């Protein structure tokens, strides 16, 4: 310590150059370490991409760890896309994710607005109820929830038929179980807890004077929320929308338990069903996994800023 300390202490003068030169080997080691770790991190994904492009015949002859002698092609993707009826599962995902995200943002911003812009006796308590609910392991509530879903009568009204897709508006078995509406409901309620926490952290930074003066000017709370406070929260709402889209898209557990039939499952959990019956070899598995990962990878490429903002808003300011 004393030697380096002495060096940096005199660094104000010309010895700064020496100090920097002495650090060079450390920089080299640092970069070598980071490059090694980066390669290690990227490799599993690279390997999946590589496997997915290889025809199975080529791997059978030459082994898995070999150079591509038979060329690379998209056959595995084609086989999976048509064989596993992928467009259908993407449609399921879309039907579940989009309304859920919109509803969560709506409910959570209402809670956050009422809890941060106004002082009332239980506003902190209410926020804590939402936050704690989201922190529970989902498995703690799943057994009663499952039985609630099996015993709640829901009317079946009509369905939306588009080609061979049939999307019931409410329920086609008069239950919440095994229905789009049921899976959406639990996503909405569970994630509203998280979104309310994050959005209220953000709204706390908005001065209450804005709301107060608007009220004195005679504006109604709904107008204040919609026209004044929410526009100020646009960055946080964009971040939450990105994050919630990814969370719900990636969900496995709720869909596994609360959707019984394969034909209502979204792509992520349908993938697991296909594991036994459809995937005959690893190259096909790789193609399937990557196709299911396309939307989150698009988020990674184009919405990285929003995604990271969403992740960190919940922790650094909370």
């Amino acid at each position, binding site marked *: *310590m004393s030697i*380096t*300390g002495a060096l940096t202490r005199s660094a104000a003068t010309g010895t700064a150059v020496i100090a920097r030169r002495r650090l060079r080997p450390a920089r080299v080691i*640092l970069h070598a*370490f*980071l490059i090694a*770790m980066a390669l290690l*991190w990227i490799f*599993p994904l690279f*390997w999946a991409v590589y496997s997915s492009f290889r025809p199975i015949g080529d791997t059978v002859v030459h082994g*898995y*760890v070999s150079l591509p002698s038979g060329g690379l092609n998209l056959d595995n993707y084609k086989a999976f896309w048509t064989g596993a009826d992928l467009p259908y599962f993407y449609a399921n995902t879309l039907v579940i994710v989009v309304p859920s995200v919109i509803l969560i943002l709506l*409910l959570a911003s*209402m*809670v956050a*607005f*009422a*809890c941060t812009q*106004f*002082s009332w006796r239980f506003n902190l308590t*209410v926020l*804590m*109820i939402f936050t704690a609910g989201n922190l529970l*392991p989902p*498995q*703690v*509530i*799943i*057994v*009663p*929830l*499952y*039985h609630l879903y099996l015993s709640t009568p829901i009317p079946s009204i009509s369905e939306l038929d588009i080609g061979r897709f049939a999307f019931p508006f409410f329920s086609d078995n008069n239950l919440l179980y095994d229905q789009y509406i049921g899976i959406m409901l639990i996503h909405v*309620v*569970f994630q*509203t807890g998280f979104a309310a926490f994050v959005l209220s952290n953000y709204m706390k930074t908005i001065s*209450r004077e804005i709301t107060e003066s608007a*009220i*004195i000017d*005679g504006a*109604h*709370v709904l107008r204040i929320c919609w026209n004044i406070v929410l526009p100020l929260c646009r960055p946080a709402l964009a971040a939450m929308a990105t994050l919630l889209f990814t969370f719900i898209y990636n969900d*496995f*557990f709720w869909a*596994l*338990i609360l959707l019984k039939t394969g034909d209502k499952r979204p792509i992520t959990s349908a993938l*697991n069903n296909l594991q036994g019956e459809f995937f005959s070899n690893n190259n096909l*598995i*790789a193609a399937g*996994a990557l196709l*299911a*990962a396309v939307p*989150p990878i698009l988020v*990674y490429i184009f919405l990285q800023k929003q995604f*990271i903002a969403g*992740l960190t808003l919940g*922790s*650094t*300011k*909370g």
Partner: protein
Amino acid sequence: MARTTSVSPAKADSPEAGELVATASGRYHVLTRYDRRVLMAMVGIPLFLDILLIWWPTFTSLYYSLTNWDGVGDITSQNFVGLKNYQFLLSGGYFQFWPAVEHNFIWLAWLTFVATPLGIFFAVLLDRDIRGTRFYQSVFYLPVVLSLVVVGFIWELQFAPTEGFINNAFGLVKTGRIIDWLGNPHINLFAVLVAASWRHVGYMMVIYLAGLKSVDPTLREAAKVDGANEVQTFFRVVFPVMAPINTVIVVLTAIESLRAFDLAFIINQGKNGLELLSILITNNSISESTRVGFGSAIAVILLVISLGPIVAFLSQAMKVSRS
């Protein structure tokens, strides 16, 4: 100004003067009755749903756990068995219970002492202006966006016994010394933890980096002027002021470990070395399984363990919102 004063200039100005509501800061809102109803609905509807679908099931788990209900028909007084389910579990009558507890704790220890510190280490290295820091950050954080299903599939490609990368790359397939990474109950938990860490490290790095950005740079400069090297600066200056983030990181790690379900389920439905509390709950109480009361007792045990990190998180959040 006293909080209970009922006269305020705002009242006279307001066209729809309703009741005055005193705020904590001593200011006054003039809210019409309509506004108050709207606000009540804004909180009340989401709160009702949250209580109905999250908190009611939580307490119902507790209720179920005192019964031997099989999921069919109503629960009658004959179904009540008191604490028998718990006695049976804790005494080791259910042979998968203690292994599952052990696996959850290994999961927790691994993430806490291996994956999370590695994520923090990456964050500290990449927080400085080194060349390519954006690139490295992007690489480490890539798995965070992926579903655990996809993560599981990608790692099956590495770990599979005859077709996997690892056994082939090290020539174990050719020489016939195949290591069954995901099938051998002595090692498969650690293989799964490698896959879990692949995602967890990036997650922790992102959160820690955001925390490091918020540290006052003058603190570091002051430490440097005082002659501290980088390691000392981190442990003696930066780490202590990061206390709130450190709490968040530890809590998130603990909650992730208790929630662990997807990876183990995808690999082998949580059997043969991959038993976890979360999986035992669903295996006992969902679909064809009829030990609803028994599975609920496991859920209650998981709940009790989870309360530790949850309370830690909430008290941290309270502290921040008070200050």
